[in-house]
């Protein structure tokens, strides 16, 4: 909850893993196919989720353990399938948004 001290969900090794992935993915993206961009970001999200899940709150765990796996780290399909890809990504984004508003601005605390 906002204002409460949050427990650590990552240790330095977990964070270093993600940092290295993001930095090197920035470099490989210069040379990679455009449709790999979202896939690399999803890979980072999956790696982060894997590290976070054991120490996360139940609400967060429900998103990273149930909603995120519905969006595997795949490249944006060319042609058929791209709309479904975007729809699934939107659904995941909506789940994350719902988690955030529940965590930081629950209904009863909104002005």
């Amino acid at each position: 909850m906002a204002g409460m001290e949050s427990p650590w969900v990552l240790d330095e090794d977990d964070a270093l893993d993600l940092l290295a992935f993001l930095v090197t993915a920035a470099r490989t993206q210069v040379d990679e196919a455009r449709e790999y961009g979202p896939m690399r970001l999803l890979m980072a999200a999956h790696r982060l989720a894997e590290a976070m899940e054991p120490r996360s709150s139940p609400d967060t765990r429900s998103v990273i353990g149930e909603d995120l796996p519905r969006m595997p780290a795949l490249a944006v399909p060319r042609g058929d399938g791209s709309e479904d890809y975007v729809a699934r990504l939107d659904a995941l984004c909506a789940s994350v948004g719902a988690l955030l508003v529940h965590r930081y601005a629950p209904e009863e605390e909104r002005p």
Partner: protein
Amino acid sequence: MTSPAVDTRSNPVIQAIRSRRVVRALTDEPVDRVTVEAILDAARWAPTAGNRHLQRFVVTDDPGTLRALRMVSPGMVQRPTAVVAVCVDWEAVAAYGFPRHVTGPYVDVGTALATILLAAHALGVGAGPVSSFSRAAVGAVLRLPPGWTAEVLVCLGYPAPAQLPPFARTRRLTWRDLTTWLPRR
């Protein structure tokens, strides 16, 4: 369609080529060093331009090095128990008088890669190539000598029962999709 005069179904080499798959989910069972060396011995037989052998193999089964390699290789989704880095020795390339931008050494990397994948398959080892990695970071992790660059990493391990879906789904191609026959004159 296969020519009736050519029996590809009973040919073990053709069957190995057709049944090989990129393996992207591996168990944590290590591949013993003798098996890795057998794969490297096969790679030594890959054709190289002018029989020059300008590629080098850097191999690790050290858990810490494997962990660091994976951290700087966004394309490495598997957790291999051994990795072969196929490198180019650019100082050796230059010593033959080739300019720095010559593309021939990459062809040799490709033949070595294909041979490693097939050799691993023949020995029951799962293998998957990774080309999405930071050359600079991998060079540092593997402590490559000056002038060497890693061009592809081959992940080795034993295939997990469940494999990951391909990154991108494409229709299955036939050789005709990839081939242009020039007419006889």
